[in-house]
Every structure is written in C-alpha cells, then in structure tokens.
C-alpha cells in the first residue's frame, strides 16, 4: 500500500461559525462535513457529482461536496442544511417542503433545499423555468419533482416570512 501523505488542518467558516478539522488533502469535503464536523445532514448520493444530494453552498456558490477536495475548503465560507434554519425556526423553503410534500424519502432533500436557497438568493422571484433550471442538478427519485417545484413557488410567494 502506498505511503500516506500528511494530514492538513483546514480552517473555514461553516454555518456562520469558525471551524477547523484535520483531513487528508485530497479527501472529500463531504466526508469532512459528515465525519469530522458531524454535520450528517449533507447526504452522499452517487458520489460522482451527478445527483446533487451532497450539495452545499461554498462562498455563495452551490457545489457538490463529493467533488471538493478538503484542501479547497481552506478559508471558505460554507453553508450546509444545518445552517438554513435560524434559531430553531425553519426557513420558509423548509416549511413549504413540509406543507407541499416536497420531501419524501429525504435523501435528496438537503441538497434540494440548498439548491433552492441558492436559487432564491440569485432570483428572489423566479419563474417556473428558473426553478426547473436552478434545481436541474439535483435528482429526486420519489416526488416526480412537481411537488418540489410547488414548494419553491410557495416559498417565494411567502417571502414576507422571516428567512
């Protein structure tokens, strides 16, 4: 077996707070979030960047954390599903997913919510086409997507609610 390289210490901001973790430099951000920081809301789906289940926000961009080496998290500002609700109050998007059946088995839901959060930050009043495009990188095998689109539409109509 090849000689292991030295682990690195990565400093970054996760969900608004400073964190540090040790990881092999080429290990996945997904694994660091789940195993080192115990933020298991981020899910592993395909593990090859196709399904979006592991999506998180990194410096304001939506990324698949299974494709991000731990080294690239150094200095980054990361938001996971655990950082979407505020002070125990669900985000309007999360509430809409509950009310409209946007979540079923739940594996795609954290990534789907992060994709929707990112979409609404870029397009506060999205068209249905923008919603479909904004969530195109996130696969769901349960809902048939319609309930998810309805959830996002409902959330932006309720934007007066605290987010």
């Amino acid at each position, binding site marked *: *077996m090849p*000689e292991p*390289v030295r682990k690195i210490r990565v400093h970054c901001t996760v969900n608004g707070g400073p964190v540090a973790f040790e990881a092999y430099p080429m290990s996945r951000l997904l694994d660091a979030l789940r195993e080192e920081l115990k933020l298991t809301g981020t899910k592993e789906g395909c593990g090859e960047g196709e399904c979006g289940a592991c999506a998180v926000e990194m410096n304001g961009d939506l990324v698949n954390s*299974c494709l991000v080496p731990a080294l*690239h998290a150094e200095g980054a500002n990361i938001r996971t599903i655990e950082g979407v609700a505020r002070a125990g109050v669900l985000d309007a998007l999360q509430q809409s997913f509950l009310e409209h059946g946007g979540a079923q088995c739940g594996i795609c839901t954290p990534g789907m919510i992060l994709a929707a959060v990112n979409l609404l930050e870029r397009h506060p009043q999205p068209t249905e086409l923008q919603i479909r495009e904004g969530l195109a990188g996130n696969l769901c095998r349960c809902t048939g997507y319609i309930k998810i689109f309805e959830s996002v539409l409902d959330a932006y109509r309720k934007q007066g609610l605290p987010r």
Partner: protein
Amino acid sequence: MRAYVPAYEIQAPPDLPAALDRMAREPHTWKPFAGGTDLMVLLEAGKLPHRRYLSI
C-alpha cells in the same frame, strides 16, 4: 473500487507563477489540478493514476 485517498497529495501554491516554478523545479512530480470536477470522479472510481497535484 475507491482509491486509497491518504496516498494522494494536493497542495495550493499562492499563485500561478509559484505553481509553474514548482513544476519546473520538480519535473514529472506534480500535475496541475483545476477545480477537480473530473479528477475527483476518477479518484472515487480508483482510476486516478497520478498522485501529486498542485491546485491552480
């Protein structure tokens, strides 16, 4: 089968000239790594042959 991740090295030089200088001083050692969208997939599949990368 997934690669043995601890065997892979990636470092981040401060800028492109530093990366090029490093590659010139240590030829055939480092390969550039830009983003990683494709390389991380190969890594996951255990098909990433080279082991030392410089993030550019």
